[in-house]
């Protein structure tokens, strides 16, 4: 009967989330600016938790310990890139905030389309971002389905679990918008960090008497497992390039990019960047849980490395109540990413795709309503991919991640290089995206294991510069609207 208590805890948590999400945005005006960027009024607390919540997804909660367990030292890259990811934002975050406020942008593509005077670019970016988002949300839904299945001992099937998670997210994103998401993320993040520290250390102390003893035993049994390089799970070149491309491309994700528009001021934005590395430290005990499994669980017993975190908790006979809290935390990790990305993808689809093809633009209220409708539609598409197989589709979409990173040269050109032209931006972006996908899908050989995204970035930058220099410069007064902010 323990499963009933476990499920009760999870549903109680979901009720709190639903309440916060729906009432977080209550009493606010119904404009698109409020629904998408919270009327550009977010303070440091909301910004900090919203960024942390949307970044620490099912990947960091379930995937990071899986990497520690199966790939050892290679997992440190997650710690490195998540702590550094916001640093480049110091350069362009305040500029984004200023430009968004000045020209009323609410999405990423609006900035690029305006600077390069190109609807084609807007449509291209919208397509890439929506495709990448479907994959990301699908993965989170699968995480949700799996958690309900585990919590109920198989009584709630995978499809129903994913559906419950989907409905909860859709309701509060639909009603509360970005403000609802921000309040929910405070709740999600507190639960995730709390359980990570308390239970992560508990597992290590219970099984090994402490982390020092655990690592000493791992080193004695598997001397190279905590290292990288030849004979380990990751080569030097792979490690370095994956850290570099992740740091450079981190803030290009549309949902993070758009958060700069939501900040109340530059001071708030910079405070958030200063505090952000503290979120990365949360990963330390999460990695410990994965390392704790190395000498306790054989891979054949586990099936998939992704199951290591719940496996470790269920193997040390905790009370059903505590298991409920742990699984609620894992569910919150999945939901906190799902809500942000669903909201962003719907915004992008309406603002950067549909609006482009309309002669008469929607009013603010109409646009906000269309975004709400596409929150439901987008969620349905992602749910269908999660349920009806779609594994091969997910694999096909993997290249979309590296494609997002290809927006970086365009962003740098917007704020720092007036000579960049429309043709340079489009040809550079498309070439970079193609190279990334060809390398990612091994059409082009990659003998040195250099990250596909970084290869695309290099080609993209070179092409953008050459094509821009070969084409007529854009109007100086226009481009200085962006470089003289």
């Amino acid at each position, binding site marked *: 009967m323990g499963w009933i208590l476990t499920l009760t805890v999870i549903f109680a948590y979901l009720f709190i989330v639903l309440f916060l999400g729906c009432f977080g945005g209550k009493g606010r005006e119904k404009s698109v600016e409020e629904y998408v960027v919270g009327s550009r009024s977010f303070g440091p607390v909301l910004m900090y938790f919203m960024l942390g919540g949307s970044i620490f997804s099912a990947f960091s909660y379930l995937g990071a310990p899986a990497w520690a367990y199966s790939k050892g030292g290679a997992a440190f890259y997650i710690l490195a890139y998540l702590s550094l990811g916001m640093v480049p934002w110091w350069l362009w975050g305040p500029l984004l905030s200023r430009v968004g406020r000045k020209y009323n942008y609410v999405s990423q593509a609006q900035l690029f389309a305006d600077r390069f005077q190109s609807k084609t670019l807007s449509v291209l970016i919208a397509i890439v971002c929506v495709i990448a988002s479907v994959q990301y949300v699908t993965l989170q839904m699968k995480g949700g389905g799996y958690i309900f299945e585990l919590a109920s001992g198989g009584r709630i099937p995978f499809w129903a679990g994913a559906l419950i998670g989907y409905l909860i997210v859709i309701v509060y994103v639909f009603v509360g918008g970005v403000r609802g998401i921000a309040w929910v993320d405070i709740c999600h993040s507190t639960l995730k960090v709390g359980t990570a520290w308390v239970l992560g250390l508990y597992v290590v102390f219970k099984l090994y008497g402490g982390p020092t003893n655990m690592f000493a035993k791992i080193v004695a049994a598997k001397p190279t497992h905590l290292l990288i390089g030849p004979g380990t799970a990751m080569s030097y070149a792979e490690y370095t390039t994956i850290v570099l491309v992740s740091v450079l491309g981190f803030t290009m994700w549309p949902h993070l990019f758009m958060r700069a528009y939501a900040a109340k*001021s530059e001071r708030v934005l910079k405070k958030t960047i200063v505090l952000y590395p503290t979120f990365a430290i949360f990963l330390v005990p999460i990695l410990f849980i994965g390392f704790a499994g190395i000498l306790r669980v054989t891979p054949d017993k586990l099936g998939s490395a992704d199951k290591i975190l719940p496996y470790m908790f269920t193997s040390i006979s905790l009370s059903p109540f505590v298991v409920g809290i742990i699984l609620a935390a894992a569910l919150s990790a999945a939901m906190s990413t799902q809500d942000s990305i669903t909201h962003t993808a719907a915004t992008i689809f309406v603002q950067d795709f549909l609006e482009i093809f309309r002669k008469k633009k929607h009013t603010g209220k109409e646009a906000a309503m269309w975004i709400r409708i596409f929150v439901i539609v987008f969620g349905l598409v992602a749910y269908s991919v999660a349920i009806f197989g779609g594994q091969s589709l997910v694999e096909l979409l993997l290249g979309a991640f590296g494609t997002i990173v290809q927006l970086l040269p365009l962003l740098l050109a917007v704020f720092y290089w007036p000579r960049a032209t429309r043709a340079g931006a489009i040809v550079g972006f498309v070439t970079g995206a193609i190279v990334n996908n060809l390398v990612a899908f091994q059409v082009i050989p990659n003998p040195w294991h250099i990250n596909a995204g970084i290869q695309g970035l290099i080609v993209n930058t070179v092409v953008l510069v050459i094509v821009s220099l070969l084409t007529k410069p854009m109007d100086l007064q226009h481009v200085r609207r962006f470089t003289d902010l």
Partner: protein
Amino acid sequence: VKSFGECPVDDEREKKPYGVVFFRPGVSPRAKKIKLFFFAAMSLIILAQGFYWLFANFAKPIIFGMPFSMFFIVALVAIQFVLLLLLYLFESKEMKD
């Protein structure tokens, strides 16, 4: 000479209107120095994280319950936090609210 805020417009900017813009018009020389210093420091931290295996690809000694490589990465995160805090304090006067 036209001016933006406290500083005269850079002649280079007028000669090469489409040249790369590293600083916005009106940034004082002191602020430029501070920004460049922190840019260099943060770039070094990013490179140190990416190339940590050159200096710290060892499991032992185990420090604060972490293998040396992990401790090195966490220490870099702590240094990064302090640097960002200092940068924030330096820049806080000129920020626009």
